[in-house]
């Protein structure tokens, strides 16, 4: 269980190793506080989406309707996010204020649909799926926060004109993900 959790955070980090959720990674990581807000919302939605789609998938498998997975999951996630938004707005306005603006964005975040599909691919049971999703979300947060720090530095650097903006951001992301490559084998080394 701990192995799954650590693998999801370090060796199979969604952003830096699997290329899921790059849009928010590049778009929202400019400032530390927005990066944290977005990440918390992602962890929340990922856990929720996994909890809801797992039983649905069981039904689909039983009825031989696996080919409907993509359509059903994206609709369920979209409806879920909308529902959570309304519930939060009504009952926990303080949390809504903190997370609300990020929620609609997350519907089209490929990390959320990705984690749901990966859980099925890896044939995890319910508990393992939940651990994997939450670990993936935490990994997302780690990458976002680290990179927000890097980018705040990058802003004040003197870089060649054609590399300014997005290219330099991507090259910085390359170096950050290089550091994450160092974790490969660590989890297997400890638990294997």
């Amino acid at each position, binding site marked *: 269980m701990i192995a799954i959790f650590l693998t999801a955070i370090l060796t199979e980090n969604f952003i*830096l*190793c*699997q*290329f*899921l*959720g*790059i*849009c*928010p990674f*590049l*778009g*929202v990581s*400019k400032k530390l506080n*927005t990066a944290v807000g977005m990440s918390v919302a992602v962890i929340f939605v990922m856990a929720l989406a996994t909890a809801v789609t797992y039983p649905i998938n069981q039904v689909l498998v039983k009825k031989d309707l696996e*080919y*409907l*997975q*993509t*359509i059903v999951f*994206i*609709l369920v996630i*979209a*409806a879920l996010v*909308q*529902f959570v938004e*309304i519930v939060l707005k009504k009952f926990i306005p303080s949390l809504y204020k903190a997370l609300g*603006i*990020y929620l*609609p*964005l997350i*519907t*089209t*975040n*490929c990390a959320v*649909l*990705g984690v749901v*599909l*990966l859980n099925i*691919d890896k044939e995890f049971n319910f508990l393992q799926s939940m651990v994997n999703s939450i670990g993936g979300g935490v990994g997302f947060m780690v990458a976002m926060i680290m990179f927000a720090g890097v980018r705040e530095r990058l802003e004040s650097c003197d870089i060649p004109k*054609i*590399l300014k*903006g*997005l*290219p*330099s*951001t*991507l*090259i910085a*992301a*390359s*170096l950050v*993900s*290089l550091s*994450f*490559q160092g974790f490969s084998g660590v989890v297997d080394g400890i638990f294997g």
Partner: protein
Amino acid sequence: MAENKKSLRYEFTKGIIKENPVLRLVLGTCPTLATSVSVTNSIGMGIAATIVLICSNIVISALRKVIPSKIRIPAYIVVIASFVTIVQMLVKAFVPALDDALGVYLPLIVVNCIILGRAEAFAGKNSVFASALDGLGMGIGFTFALIVMATVREILGSGTFLDGIDSLTKLFGVTSFTGFHIFSQPIGLMTMAPGGFLVFGLVMALANKVAEGKGKPKAELKGCAACPMAHSCALIDTDASCDNSGRESETE
């Protein structure tokens, strides 16, 4: 008539270079980075995404007067998800090797911002034929950017070019050509995540340089401005009117 023809040609060609979805509009970065490991994967991904893009553009454009604007995003997503499922089944049936290579990224075409973005920005407002051309152009532009990146990454990272292409060409009865082997001690890092970010950054810098030479503004990250959900996102200063109201009334 002549003008009409010209504008149709513009809808087709703009996606390839001028408004290249990956390099100029910065859309669909996730599949770009993930599948540009080998040229074969890129071609497969490009074709799959192009088919989905054309079909969903045609259907959405044909239905644009029927779909109420308030629930258009969920409606678009259903149309796109249906075509993605069809393409996924076709790939599984005819090119299983590609299905293995692309893995989870094949169903993830659903959330590829290029497709929802084009539906929202173009197909929802224009005629069927123009939308089909727009989809084809954007799809070719996407494939082109993927192939450029994959060429660099595959040659440096695996020492091969077009490796495993026979899994695609055998659909046309050609199996003899299985790719070039260029050298045997490649830089494996280029096929991994850091290489992906690095090559993407450099290719984009090059695209900026070319665009600058033509006096065009360089590709800018407008946060998530290009993303179809941008309106409902308070991170950028757009009025939160259209999408938000649409999405809220969906569940009311």
